[in-house]
């Protein structure tokens, strides 16, 4: 059975190779090949899953060793996979949602002349993401980690003729590289501390290592997670990443890749459990991002950027939960899975709306679309109810558990975290209601596009609506299914461990409080965007709104300090290299004209000098040796 693991990765990898090297011949069938191979990977995943269910809880980990990757004295890295309950969860999410989004893209990218290449990149992404979650050591995980970064770079910049897309792609890769620096330092620290960076041996030996080392490793892993999962302070790339085609935003920048940071922290639970200081930082990062993303999400008029703010915020919940330790790991992953369903669904819905509205993204120019796009409206609506935590739907179960876990942390810390997560739930209800109202309700505020064509909203083709319906079903039922009899808890507990903590409030009280903030959030949004009419031109807004529109000025900070500062630094260094270090001023071509005569003379001179020195040198050498003999 373990031999199937490599096939999981191989299917999409072959797809990527064939589609990217295959040339124009494959233009007609390439998208089907890509989708088929993604589906094949999903089927293999299901086979492995049913096999895993058939074994007892402590005997579910499979291992496949392919070959030794970098064998050097004292250093060992293998191409080897490990499939346990945690990676199984991810495999099903990645290949399942991945297949649906391949299917959706067939319709969405129908008129793009480079569709084959798009599917090649999507397949490449699946393969890299599967390597990331299946690796049995950190170096192989790193390979997958950067592989998904590459796929993300290629897909954000897929429409590279748009300078904004090319810039966004570059920015995403660069910011992620800062995170990668953290991951490589973490691996180096593991190597010097444990002599290995394979999961099993490292986790077994954490008990013997000093807490300082473990804290350092934990913080570096967190830096990596911040980059990939768009957490403060490395969050700035995610909003710009919305330049990519919408299926990419759904798959990579909502459901799977951006959650890799949560996976990394949960996978490294043994390290974090032994390093409480690092855990504290994780929790703080999660809490700050949770609010940061939510506030940004409230101010954006671009539907995809509003959803991106929401993604950041929801991953903030997951990171926070993972930072809580054994109290939260299971719920972090559970929210990750339910979020994968409803957020992917919301993005696909947004894509469907854009598809019908001449690629308009400004929600101020939507309005009243519910009657024109009924399927999109209903599926988006269910995703909306799920994300705000409407009772009975997926988000209700998974988010509620995180809020409970935050309180269960205990002490003042628990109260603060609990309050933050509650506040976040309120803001989530507000901004999602805002998106819902501005898009599907109210009067039509449609504007003709740049070419002067008025939009004719229509429902999207079947290949797009089917994935939306499937994801909506997941958004409705997944949470309840997981929570019934604590199924998900029992499933993951053998890998992550679990601890109930001590909650200062009963679960009922917390759920009640969540309901109260939810109602407040929805009501405020309704007052502002439902009852009052929405102006097409955005109002000036408060200071906070204006800052939030600019991603809370983080980009401005980056621009002034890093971009400008960096430009000045490199420019002065280039100047210095020419003048100071080189000692010879090159000057302009004109001044070279004057120099050329002299240089030519010099050149001949040097060539002769050179020859002379060769002979001279040899002569000296011979003389010296003769002298030695004589003596």
């Amino acid at each position, binding site marked *: 059975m373990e031999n199937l693991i490599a096939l999981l990765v191989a299917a999409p990898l072959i797809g990527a190779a064939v589609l990217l090297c295959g040339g124009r011949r494959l233009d007609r069938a390439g998208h089907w090949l890509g989708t088929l191979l993604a589906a094949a990977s999903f089927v293999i995943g299901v086979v492995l899953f049913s096999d895993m269910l058939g074994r007892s809880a402590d005997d579910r980990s499979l291992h496949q060793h392919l070959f030794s990757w970098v064998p050097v*004295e004292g250093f060992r890295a293998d191409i080897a996979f490990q499939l346990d309950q945690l990676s199984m969860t991810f495999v099903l999410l990645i290949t399942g949602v991945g297949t649906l989004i391949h299917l959706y893209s067939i319709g969405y990218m129908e008129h793009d002349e480079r569709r084959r290449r798009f599917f090649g990149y999507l397949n490449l992404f699946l393969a890299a993401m599967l390597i990331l979650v299946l690796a049995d050591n950190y170096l192989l995980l790193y390979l997958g980690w950067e592989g998904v970064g590459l796929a993300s770079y290629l897909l954000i910049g897929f429409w590279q003729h748009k300078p904004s897309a090319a810039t966004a792609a570059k920015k995403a890769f660069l910011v992620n590289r800062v995170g990668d*620096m953290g991951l490589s*330092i973490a691996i180096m620290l593991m190597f010097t501390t*444990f002599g290995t960076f394979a999961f099993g041996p490292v986790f077994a030996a954490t008990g013997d290592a000093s807490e300082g080392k473990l804290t350092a490793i934990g913080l570096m892993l967190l830096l990596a997670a911040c980059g990939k999962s768009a957490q403060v302070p490395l969050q700035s790339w995610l909003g710009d990443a919305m330049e990519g085609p919408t299926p990419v935003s759904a798959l990579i920048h909502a459901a799977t890749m951006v959650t890799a940071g949560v996976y990394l922290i949960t996978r490294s639970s043994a390290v974090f459990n032994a390093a409480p200081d690092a855990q504290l930082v994780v929790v703080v990062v999660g809490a700050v991002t949770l609010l940061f993303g939510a506030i940004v999400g409230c101010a954006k008029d671009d539907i995809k950027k509003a959803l991106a703010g929401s993604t950041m915020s929801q991953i903030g919940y997951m990171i926070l939960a993972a930072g809580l330790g054994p109290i939260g790991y299971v719920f972090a992953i559970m929210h990750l899975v339910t979020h994968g369903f409803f957020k992917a669904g919301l993005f696909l819905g947004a894509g469907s709306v854009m598809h019908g509205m001449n690629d308009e993204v400004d929600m101020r120019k939507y309005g009243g679309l519910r009657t024109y796009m009924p399927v999109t409206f209903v599926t988006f609506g269910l995703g909306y109810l799920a994300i705000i935590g409407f009772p009975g739907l997926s988000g209700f179960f998974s988010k509620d558990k995180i809020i409970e876990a935050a309180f269960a942390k205990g002490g003042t810390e628990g109260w603060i975290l609990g309050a933050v997560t509650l506040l976040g739930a309120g803001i989530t209800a507000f901004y999602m209601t805002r998106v819902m109202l501005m898009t599907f309700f109210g009067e039509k505020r449609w504007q003709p596009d740049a070419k002067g064509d008025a939009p004719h909203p229509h429902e999207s083709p079947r290949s797009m609506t089917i994935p939306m319906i499937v994801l909506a079903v997941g958004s409705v039922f997944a949470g309840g299914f997981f929570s019934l009899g604590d199924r998900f808890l029992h499933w993951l507990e053998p890998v992550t461990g679990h601890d109930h903590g001590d909650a200062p409030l009963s679960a009922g009280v917390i759920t009640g409080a969540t309901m109260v903030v939810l109602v407040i959030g929805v009501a405020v949004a309704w007052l502002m965007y439902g009852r009052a009419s929405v102006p097409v031109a955005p109002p000036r807004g408060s200071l906070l709104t204006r800052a939030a529109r600019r991603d809370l000025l983080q980009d401005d900070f980056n621009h002034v300090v890093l971009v400008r500062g960096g430009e000045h*630094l490199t420019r002065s260094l280039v100047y210095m290299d020419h003048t100071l270090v080189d000692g010879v001023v090159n000057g302009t071509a004109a001044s070279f004209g004057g120099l050329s005569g002299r240089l030519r003379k*010099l050149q001949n001179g040097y060539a002769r000098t*050179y020859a002379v*020195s060769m002979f001279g040198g040899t002569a000296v050498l011979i003389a010296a*040796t003769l002298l030695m003999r004589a003596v």
Partner: protein
Amino acid sequence: MSFPLLTATAVLPAVGAIATAAVPAARRTAAKWLALLFSLATLALAVLVLVRFEPGGARYQLTESHAWIADFGVRYELGVDGIGVALLALTALLIPFVILAGWHDADPLEDARPNRRWRPTQGFFALILMVEAMVILSFEATDVFLFYILFEAMLIPMYFLIGGFGDRAHAGGDEAAATQRSYAAVKFLLYNLVGGLIMLAAVIGLYVVAGTFSLSEIVAARADGSLSMATGTERWLFLGFFFAFAVKAPLWPLHTWLPNAMGEATAPVAVLITAVVDKVGTFAMLRFCLGLFPEASTWATPAILVLALISIVYGALLAVGQRDIKRLIAYASISHFGFIIMGIFAMTSQGQSGATLYMVNHGISTAALMLVAGFLISRRGSRLIADYGGVQKVAPVLAGTFLIGGLATLSLPGLSPFVSEFLVLVGTFSRYPVVGVIATVGIVLAALYVLVLYQRTMTGPVKDAVRTMPDLRIRELVVVTPLIALLLFLGVYPKPLTEIVNPAVEHTMSDVQKTDPKPEVEAAP
């Protein structure tokens, strides 16, 4: 006496050089094919060396030894260890691609008057083969004097290659092009000449102290204590050797000749400089500096690590600030040489194995990136980044291969440079954590200069000047595809290379009497 295989690997390209040079002026194409044939035959011999070489066997294998200048103890002594074999193979591998990529670089201009004695094409390819012969022999020489002669002699063909052949079109016109070329060639010669002369003094000094030029004899004598050097003497001799190698490698602040040389030379010659000839410098640090002067090497390590660190960061920052594609790649190479030197002087198994792999991988990745850049430049006739834009739309294959070359340069996992860069970092970190951490900044900066280069040249709206640009031709694909395949293969399965290199590194580690730092906690296997 068995067949002198190592001599043959050097003699064959030398014969090829003479044969190519002798082809009549009118038969230019024949000269090209002849040169290609000889380079491929050399590659075949190099493969034979790889096959005959036993990784677990004696330190130096396939040895040859003949008296040469008996009176002065100079011998013609050859032998290869794993490090030498790897670099020999790299050189033999790259030359056919260099020749094929430069197929039209030395064609006489169409308006040039026919002249029976004017044979630039023949000269170009003969010089390339001459460089190959000398570089290969320098990887094989185990006699210090023989090595010195080759180390110096290879400057002559390189000088003519840089000064005599340049890009077809130049922003400042033909006159400025010729001036800048000869300036670059002179600078190259001058820098390396000064290094060589200082080394000569050290070579003489070494003979005075040791009474022999034989590397293996000196290393053995040092190991068993029969040859002891005064601390001061050893340090001075070390510095003499190291200086010459640091110029060639090149190490900050001796690097400024490289951007000029690589910028003015044609792309294939630029590859010859950075991927092949410069490797002799880093190779010689491993073989001669560490082998002959172990104590001085340890003594100088802190200073060298600082210089290497400066090279890494400084080279990368300058690459970010370049406007000229080829100069950008040159500065990127300076950054990479910083990594190689850092790995050598970290004095750990991972660092030195990583440094050796780095030499090979950097050769392949720079060749891929630089040769594609050359194809691009030959289409538009400009080296300036700002003259391009939107190439991806008109020439997707060219853009794709350029991106892969770039991703290899930024050490993306899955491509071979990642393996070597990570080994160097880990090897350095385990002995000098602070140095290792600072060096990781290079990871971020590399992404910056590669992606900025790609964005400005390949993406965005299509510029008018590139609108009619053709995509890669068959000949160009034949050059690029095998290099990319190799980058992928060695990125996932570098074992064939590490198996050859590891034993040699163990020997070097024992030369300098170092052992790897032990991990804090011994994890259960």
